[in-house]
């Protein structure tokens, strides 16, 4: 049985689901952030698979841009988490309730 596009897409969907599950269940800001990275990587895998099976490189250029933007996003997000930790001494979402009614 040869490996086709749908095999890669199923792996990508499962990886995305794992990331989503991590964001929903884990309550630590850093682990939630890592789960976000998992979801981004799942989207990258789908784009590379589309690019290979459609026989052109546009999808791979898209993945290149996604990796760049993800690096910038991680830098800003982690700086925000560090600033938050300085104010609140916690990186746990259940301790950050000042906007709750």
């Amino acid at each position: 049985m040869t490996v086709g596009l749908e095999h890669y897409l199923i792996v990508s969907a499962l990886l995305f689901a794992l990331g989503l599950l991590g964001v929903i269940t884990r309550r630590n800001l850093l682990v939630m952030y890592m789960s976000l990275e998992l979801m981004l990587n799942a989207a990258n895998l789908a784009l590379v698979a589309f690019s290979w099976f459609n026989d052109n490189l546009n999808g791979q250029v898209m993945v290149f841009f996604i990796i760049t933007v993800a690096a910038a996003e991680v830098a800003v997000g982690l700086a925000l988490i560090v600033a938050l930790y300085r104010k609140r001494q916690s990186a746990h979402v259940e301790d950050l309730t000042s906007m709750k009614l």
Partner: protein
Amino acid sequence: MQEILFYFFAALTLIFGALVIANPFSRNPVTSAMFLVLTIISLAGLFVLLHAFFLAAVQVIVYAGAVMVLFLFVIMLLDLEEEERRKIKLAGLVAGLVSVGAIVVIFVRSLLATKPGSNLPSPTTEGDTAALGKLLFTNYLLPFEIVSILLLVAMVGVILLSKKDLK
């Protein structure tokens, strides 16, 4: 050979990905970060199977190298000892499993119903550095330059955010 490698790397990716979000042995964020590195490296293996050699190298260098070092720096900077004592709430776990399971069922059923890519010709385009670079500097020149400005903006923002007296 290709099939065996695909199943090998796919299984590795999913197992390590599961260990990132729920590790039965340790709740320490450092373990999660190390398993995320392993997930990213096995994903790079899948990229090589898809002939995206340049992206596989970038994935290892940028993600496993730069981004994860940033993560580890921040984890070590914050003192997260108490994280290991917290329990995962049962209600959140059940809600998460139900909603994520529903999404997976929708994904997989729609994929199996439509069978995408079943009648495509066999692909030949290699994703090597020369081909990708040529495309980046011709068709995608403007997005490429905008991304460099985005990186500059992110850098300035991070420096501003990590100043001691944040107003």
